[in-house]
C-alpha cells in the first residue's frame, strides 16, 4: 500500500532519485581504444623515423608533430587502461586474474618508455601488453578473442573479440 502510494508520487516526479548499485556512470568498458592508441604510438614512431624531406624545417615540423601525437596516444593508453583496471575490475575479477595488477603496471611503464624515446621495440612491446590485457578483459565476459592483423599501418596483430549477433 505504502509502496504503491510512493510509486504514484514517484511517477509524478515528486521523489528524487539516487543510484545505489549500478556501475555508474555508464558501465561501458572496452579495451579497443587503448589498443588503437598503442598501435598509433608505433605508427607515429615509424613516420618519425621514415619521414623524408629536402626541407629541414618541414622534416623538423613532421617529427615535432609525430612526437606530440605520440605523447598524447601513449598517455591515452595509460588513461584507458587505468579506467578499466580501476573501475571495471572488482574483487572477484581480480581474484580470478591476479596478474592484472602486474600487467597494468607493465603497461604504465612501457607507455612511459614510448613517450620518452622512439624505440620501435618499446612500441611493439606496448601493443603486446595491451593485447594481453584485452584478452583478459574479454575472458572476464566469457567472450572469445582472436588475433588478426589490423587493416591499416603498421599492420600488427591485435586482439579482437569474437562477438555473436
Amino acid at each position, binding site marked *: 500500500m*505504502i*509502496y*504503491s502510494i*510512493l*510509486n504514484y508520487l*514517484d511517477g509524478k516526479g515528486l*521523489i*528524487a*532519485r*539516487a*543510484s*545505489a*548499485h549500478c*556501475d*555508474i*556512470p555508464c558501465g561501458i568498458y572496452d579495451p579497443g581504444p587503448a589498443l588503437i592508441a598503442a598501435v598509433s604510438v608505433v605508427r607515429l614512431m615509424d613516420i618519425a623515423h621514415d619521414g623524408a624531406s629536402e626541407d629541414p624545417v618541414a622534416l623538423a615540423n613532421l617529427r615535432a608533430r609525430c612526437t606530440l601525437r605520440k605523447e598524447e596516444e601513449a598517455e591515452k593508453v595509460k588513461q584507458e587502461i587505468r579506467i578499466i583496471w*580501476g*573501475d571495471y575490475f*572488482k*574483487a*572477484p575479477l581480480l581474484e580470478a586474474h591476479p596478474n592484472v595488477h602486474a600487467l597494468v603496471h607493465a603497461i604504465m611503464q612501457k607507455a612511459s618508455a614510448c613517450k620518452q624515446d622512439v624505440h620501435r621495440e618499446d612500441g611493439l612491446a606496448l601493443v603486446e601488453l595491451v593485447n594481453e590485457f584485452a584478452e583478459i578483459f574479454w575472458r572476464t565476459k566469457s567472450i572469445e578473442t582472436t588475433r588478426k592483423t589490423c587493416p591499416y599501418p603498421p599492420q600488427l596483430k591485435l586482439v579482437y573479440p569474437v562477438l555473436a549477433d
Partner: protein
Amino acid sequence: MLSPGAFALFKRSAIYRDGDVLLINHPRFGKIVKRAIDVNADSLWLEGANANSLSRESMGPIERARVQGKLVYHIDRKK
C-alpha cells in the same frame, strides 16, 4: 542492501559514523547511496554493499559537505 526500485528516507545529521548508509551528492557520479567507511572530521570514504559496486578508490574521499543524509527507513518494491 537496498533492492532496485526501493524508496528510501534519508535524514540530515550532525554526526555520521562508519557503517551508515548515506545519500551523497558525488562530484562525478551524482546522487548515489553508499555505505560510509573511515569517517573523520572533514571527509569519509564510501563502499558499496554489492560486490560489483564501484571501488572505494574510484569514488575517492568525500567531503562531509557532500553528505545529504543517512538512511533511516526504506521500503522495498513489492515482490
